[in-house]
């Protein structure tokens, strides 16, 4: 049941998010839907995988997002020689104290930017991905919790595949959503030339929200109501990916959870205290597509996972309570 406080919180949330969005959009021109999706993932406690060709602003988006929120930010440039301990941290023998001292790795930040994640060795990748899921790091039997909020924004380049280690399905599954930024439109690109021609706008970006604000927003999002029909709709959509003829691998139950949480965040972003099928529909391609494995035949036919998800959306009836009999 929605209370006055809930509505207040929602109002705060939309106001805060609006500020962040405005800030980010100063850097990322003409991609409001990408910015919105990033914010949705942030509020849904997910991690974002940005997959696109080089130079479209993947890192810029991640940085802008991190910079807008006043929180600790670490950027990891993934290379083949990156070691898992570079990410998680390492215990070093302290001669004076005659004890091991834990030196936290790059993961111990509220916002982690993993650049070109597919360039790291699988071992390193998995170290990162484990911490992403569990939100803690365990080294030498000692567990170190990661700060809150915690969000990994990883980028990967789908074109340059040489010397890369593509993320296995299980690891892609850890990301709540995958987003492609895409090339900007002509106007946006022209504006970009004006803005980015001199100094980098990123340098001027000031934090517009506090980390604890974000934690509060996340709490608010958790309170968003999801009615039974919408929950059922989410389950139906995910189940449909498992039964689809063009898919070798459907979405996992984790995907169901992620979709639901994303839908809640999306509703909160819209200032609504309840999720709609529209939220689910808007997020389903971003949340589900990167987890699906199309069959070879579908790939040959040019049917990507994204196309299949949209097809499923077009064929799954939107839940509605059945009307009175005979009408």
């Amino acid at each position: 049941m929605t209370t006055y406080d809930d509505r207040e919180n929602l109002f705060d949330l939309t106001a805060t998010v609006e500020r962040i969005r405005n800030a980010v959009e100063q850097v990322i021109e003409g991609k409001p839907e990408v910015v919105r999706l990033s914010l949705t993932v942030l509020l849904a406690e997910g991690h974002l995988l940005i997959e696109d060709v080089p130079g479209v602003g993947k890192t810029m988006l991640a940085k802008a997002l991190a910079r807008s929120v006043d929180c600790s930010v670490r950027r990891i440039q993934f290379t083949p020689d990156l070691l898992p301990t570079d990410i998680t941290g390492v215990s070093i023998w302290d001669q004076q104290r005659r004890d091991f001292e834990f030196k936290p790795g790059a993961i111990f930040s509220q916002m982690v930017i993993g650049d070109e994640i597919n360039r790291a060795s699988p071992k390193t990748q998995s170290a990162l991905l484990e911490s992403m899921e569990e939100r803690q790091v365990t080294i030498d039997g000692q567990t170190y919790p990661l700060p809150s909020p915690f969000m990994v924004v990883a980028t990967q380049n789908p074109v340059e595949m040489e010397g890369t280690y593509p993320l296995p399905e299980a690891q892609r599954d850890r990301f709540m959503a995958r987003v492609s930024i895409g090339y900007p439109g002509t106007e946006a690109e022209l504006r970009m030339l004006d803005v980015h021609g001199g100094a980098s706008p990123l340098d001027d970006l000031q934090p517009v929200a506090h980390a604890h604000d974000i934690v509060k927003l996340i709490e608010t999002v958790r309170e968003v109501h999801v009615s039974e029909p919408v929950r059922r709709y989410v389950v139906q959509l995910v189940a449909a990916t498992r039964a689809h003829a063009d898919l070798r691998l459907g979405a996992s139950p984790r995907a169901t959870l992620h979709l639901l949480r994303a839908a809640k965040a999306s509703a909160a972003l819209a200032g609504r205290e309840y999720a709609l099928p529209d939220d689910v529909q808007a997020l389903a391609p971003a949340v589900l597509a990167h987890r699906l494995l199309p069959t070879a035949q579908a790939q040959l036919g040019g049917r990507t996972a994204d196309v299949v998800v949209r097809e499923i959306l077009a064929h799954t009836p939107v839940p509605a309570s059945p009307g009175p009999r005979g009408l």
Partner: protein
Amino acid sequence: MTLASVAATLLTATALLPLIDRGSWYPRAFLAVLLTAGVGAAARRLSMPRPTVVAVQLVASLALLSFYFARQQAVAWLLPGPDAVRRLADLAGQGVRDVGEYTTPAPLTDGIALLLIGGVLVIALLVDALAVTYGLAAPTGLPLLALYSVAAGLSDEGTHWFTFCAAAAGYLALLLADGRERLTRWGRAFGGAGSVSPARSGQRTGRRIGAVALGVALLAPVALPSLGGSLMAGAGSGDGPGGSGPVDSVDLLVELRDNLNETDDRTALTVRTTSRRTDDLYLRIVSLDEFDGKTWEASPRRTVDLPDRFPTPPGLGLQVDRREVTSRISAAGWYRQRHLPMPYPATWADAVGDWRLDPVGMTVIGGRKDTTADKSWQVASLEVLPTREQLAAAPAPGPELRNLTELPASLPEEVGERAREVTKGSRNAYEQAVALQEWFSRTGNFSYDTQVEVGEDSRAITRFLRDRKGFCIHFSFAMASMARSLGIPARVAVGFAPGSEQGDGSVEVTLRDAHAWPELYFEGVGWTRFEPTPTRGTQPEYTRPETAPGASARPSEAAVEDTASAEPSARPSASVSCTVELKRLDACPEPTDPALVADGGGGPRWPGTLLWTAAGLAALLLPLTPMLWRLRVRALRLGAHGRGEADVLPHTLRVWRELTDSAWDLGLPPDDSLTPRRAAERIVRGGRLDPATAEAVHRVASAVEQVLYAPRARAAPGLAADVRGVCAVLRGSVGRGTRLRALLAPRSAARVRWALASWMAGVRSRLSRRAA
């Protein structure tokens, strides 16, 4: 293919053969069909256009008909000029009249022959044009079926199974030939060893279908109860020929015997008569005047409309005394008979329905649908009172009656010899007849036995004369044959012997009164009844042998005088007007009677009228059903609703459904995968709605979202008004045709079909669960 079509027509035409007493028309039809088919084949060979082929065949057919029927009028015997066409038209008209007048089997008049040959020729042309010229073999079933149906419909006892098989075989042959021809048009099919070529498999399929169809056609009549057609017991066992009248005397006679053996002696007819001699009240159904050596049959008769007054019975002279009596006869509901049982000779009859008179046999025959069941009819008849002298003095019959003394060559000599032996010493025909009757009924030691078979062979009479055992059929057949052998015109009447008089003065005639008796012709007296069957009926006064020789008194005079003295006014006048006497006898039609009967069997008519009115209204309303349904549903959806929290959800959903359905009716089909918001956008876009109306649509969609997905449903006021407004704007945005269609045939009526389908599926699944 041409040959197959000829065969199909000719085989089907065999069904017409039993309708006519002679089959001589068939070879002519055969030749005509063959010739027109040949003309068609030649025309096709010359690669004429298809309509020309048909036209050439038509001309050839006309020429043939002219040659057959209007040779004198036609130019060069063949070319039909105006005279020939007139002659053909006259003949056809004559044929139609003949068909109406004769019962089957009808004599082969020129008119009937023209109708037959012309009809078969038309069918042959149709079949040839369809199957060969236009290559459509399957539809030829229709003209063939028409031909067969005409034959089956005209034939009183249906067609013979053989003709059915012939017609079916002809059609199947045509289909098979067509299948083969199609294949040869495509060339030979290749097939490895052991594989079945399409031609063979096609033939096999054809044969299978044919076999199944024939099987069904032959078995169905066995499985289905046929209409009662028994002569005496219309509602009997039901194994008689469907709905037939007593035209087929063999069936008639077999049934007569069955009825005599009937254990359940039901009352068939109730008679009230002004006659004082009810023991002489024989009711005739039909008279059989043709003897082929095996059995007696009714010759083909020309019938006329029931006249006000029947013609004078043949041969009845003025000097013979007669009295007219009136009888009112009622048949039981189960008693179906196409002839009206009535006394002989009748002078007028009044019955409701299409009844016709056979002036020769003096019998009354019903139309195709008229039977005696549950009917009453009034009939006046003569009690003819000839004296023995008159009978004895009767001169030899004229040459016009010669055919009534004809006997087939197959009849054993023994019959004639026996007749002469029995009538030895008789001085005239009358005495011979009396002697015969006396021999059969008394001196010949014959015994009455209904278990004896009727016998349908030429030895049946000799067997009967040897065994001296039989029942009325044997006696009447034998006496009539023997009388003919003596030169006395004779025929056999079939009907009822006098029934038993009841306490109220009526006479009840039961099944076991079914009877056959000989009628012998005496010039000046006419057809005179004799009674050779022992223990059955009564022998007429004028035939009693003890008083016959030399007696001058009129045997019936005393009885008549008795009656006259006892009740002088009892003798009814010849007038048809209702006398006091008639009224007393309940023989007058009640004032309401004719009206009631004319109305089709009595009873108030209003239920029927009501039914017809309802049916008419239903037929009118049926096309409007979708509109009416839609209007009703709209009123329900946008109508009043409860104010409670529980009512918010159903009301909002109903209003939303109305909006989407209205859009659907106007050409925007619903899409289940669209969320309310997207659906609203689609309606706004599709209907090119103005911002205010678009806002109203979105208001409704938001209300739906709210009630469906929010934690608590909140009522949104004014939704129905919003929807009404939106619908009005939507209707204004489309053309008149779309609007009209939305009104009369709303697309959203498909929901009824879906609802029905889902209901059916539910029922089926419940049933299958129960069965499991």
